[in-house]
């Protein structure tokens, strides 16, 4: 929305997968310079499977070396490779039936152009200089162009394979959310009041969830920057992968005066749990105008960016009785 940046983020997970008694040997083979299939009745399956695809019966670990050459039985020319493809330049995805196998596998053929590709052509596997025990350790080329390689095997059998998954998303900030963010930069809290029942939501989701009524800028209302703690917890950070926190801190929900819904997920690091109470009155101490920033914006998460305020300060007013807050805990 112009002045408010778009959400540009990557959801990424470093998957490590166990490989089991069939895929393990297959990936070990890729790392060590060979292609492995498995016997299934009269046939040889490559890539190898743990079960007979027709009957579901478990297959004995009767492995057969296949390839290094094979036949292209199907293909497409990938004219616009994605970031996830094994090749940055146009290439062919193909179904390749390796010599000695009865079923084809999907893989990439690095041909110079679509003119080099024809169904029935022969291709040969090539092993990448750096291999990790994954299907990406290899690629294929037209047989005439295959280079002779001497591949140094690894030590231990491959029992774990890594697959780093990342999905990138980009989304503009929705208009109702942009208005909320602009108000924060202005040192104000903006909510929306339902035209159906008058309840005020901060921050709003753009609709009244209780009555299923969409809301517009006509429903925008400003609420106070002073409010009441409705619930809190003390978080003791667990050191999981990606965790950045080390010291315990408070996470609380604050019901701003004028709002019916508390703002949750507010982190407090300058007060300790013994100084904190449900019912306590706090005021938002804003950063000076011009020093407020939004940081990472979102259409859904992160109610109040910590970069627009300095701290939440106890006002010294008497606590609000807890039973007056029971409909606004969360």
């Amino acid at each position, binding site marked *: 929305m112009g002045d408010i940046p778009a*959400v540009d*983020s990557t*959801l990424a997970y470093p*998957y490590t*997968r166990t*490989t089991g008694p069939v*895929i393990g040997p297959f*990936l070990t083979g890729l790392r060590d310079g060979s292609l492995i299939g498995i016997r299934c009745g009269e046939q040889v399956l490559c*890539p190898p*499977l743990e079960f007979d*695809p027709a009957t579901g019966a478990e297959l004995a670990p009767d492995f057969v070396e296949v390839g290094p050459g094979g036949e292209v039985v*199907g*293909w*497409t*020319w*990938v*004219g*616009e490779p*994605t*970031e*996830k*493809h*094994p090749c940055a330049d146009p290439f062919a*995805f*193909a*179904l390749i*039936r390796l010599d000695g196998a009865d*079923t*084809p*596998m*999907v*893989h*990439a053929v690095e041909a110079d152009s*679509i003119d080099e590709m024809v*169904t029935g052509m022969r291709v040969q596997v090539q092993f990448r200089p750096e291999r990790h025990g*994954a*299907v*990406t350790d290899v690629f294929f080329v037209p047989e005439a162009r295959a280079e002779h390689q001497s591949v140094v095997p690894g030590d231990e059998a491959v029992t774990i*394979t890594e*697959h780093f*998954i990342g*999905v*990138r*998303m*980009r*989304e*503009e900030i*929705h*208009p*109702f959310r942009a208005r909320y963010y602009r108000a924060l930069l202005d040192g104000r809290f903006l909510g929306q009041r339902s035209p159906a029942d008058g309840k005020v939501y901060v921050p709003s*989701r*753009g*609709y009244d*969830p*209780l*009555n*299923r009524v*969409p809301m517009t800028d006509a429903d925008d209302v400003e609420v106070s920057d002073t409010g009441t703690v409705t619930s809190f917890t003390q978080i003791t950070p667990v050191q999981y992968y990606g965790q950045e926190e080390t010291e315990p801190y408070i996470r609380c929900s604050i019901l701003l005066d004028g709002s019916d819904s508390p703002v949750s997920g507010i982190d407090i690091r300058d007060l300790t749990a013994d100084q904190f109470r449900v019912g306590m009155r706090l005021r938002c101490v804003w950063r000076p105008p011009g020093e407020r920033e939004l940081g990472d914006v979102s*259409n*859904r998460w992160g109610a109040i960016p910590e970069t627009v305020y300095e701290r939440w300060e106890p006002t010294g007013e008497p606590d609000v009785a807890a039973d007056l807050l029971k409909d606004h805990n969360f």
Partner: protein
Amino acid sequence: MAAPDDIAIIGVAQTPAHDCYDNTEPTLLMAVVNQLLSEAGLERSDVDFTIAGSCDYLSGMPFAFVANVDGVGAWPPVYESHVEMDGAWALFEAWLRLQLGDIDIALVLGSGKSSPTDSRQVFPLQGDPYFTAPLGFDPVSYAGIQARALIEADLATEADFAAVVARSLADGATNPNALRGDPNANAAALLAEPHLSAPLRHHDVSPKADGAAGVLIARGERARQLCADPVWIRGIDHRIESHHPGLRDLVDAPSVRLAADRLDLAAGALDVAELHVTHSHEETILRRVLGLADTTAVNPSGGPLCGDPVMATGLIRVIEVAQRIADGSAGRGLAHASSGAALQQNLLCVLEGDS
């Protein structure tokens, strides 16, 4: 086993297919839910069971399907279910649930915001985690392989694909919910365009969209009380093939044939068929395997090639058929939905009006 109870569609609603919707997914669903309830004269509390089909990966938002319940109204608590599938499979579960006989009305939804992510990078993740996902093997490439196999088996030509697109675009021009349409689309001009995943071109691939759709279904007498022109679900079935591309016969669709046989599709004429064609060559395969007659109107809505709000698209095929039966322009119709890639998993739904 007793014959399944008569279940009818008593209301339908869909949002337009948006290129990029400037608001949240619950808002899309809310519009659909509000329209369905108000047109049926029902309150949310009248709905016995709610089920939605959606996929968090499309918007890249964890638990998007939980936030989506706001579209239905999450308070008071609602008896609801979810499938990480197209809404057509949510319809299957709702139909199945009503067979237990203790409840009468179900709300079925399908929705998705595909605009934040690139589906060619997301959908490889549904493939085999060892053999194809790490290669980023995507549905368009898979479709390209299938389309080429079709040509080499002398079952279709690139001109046939262009003809499907041209006809679809022309039909989509009169569909107010379509994302694209062109009353003057012509196959020769389409064939002059460059390839994307040869032999497929950009226009051979459905344009992914943001959107939501929903239906209300009800049992027997309750359906007749609520709706003057109920559209009866005469049969619904879905089948799946191997997820290993090398084990499939890509020019055939055995799962479609199996579902069609189970539903005794050939038992009566079909006035209309809406097919979940996300790559134009798929229409060639489906027409052949389903044995569609020339008298069956195929994708009169323009189909997904004119707008593909992923996770709602299959349910919209049901909606487009149901609307044409309800308004009297069709008597019996078929809706097809697909999942996986290259027609790996297929659902068929036979719909019929009161005769």
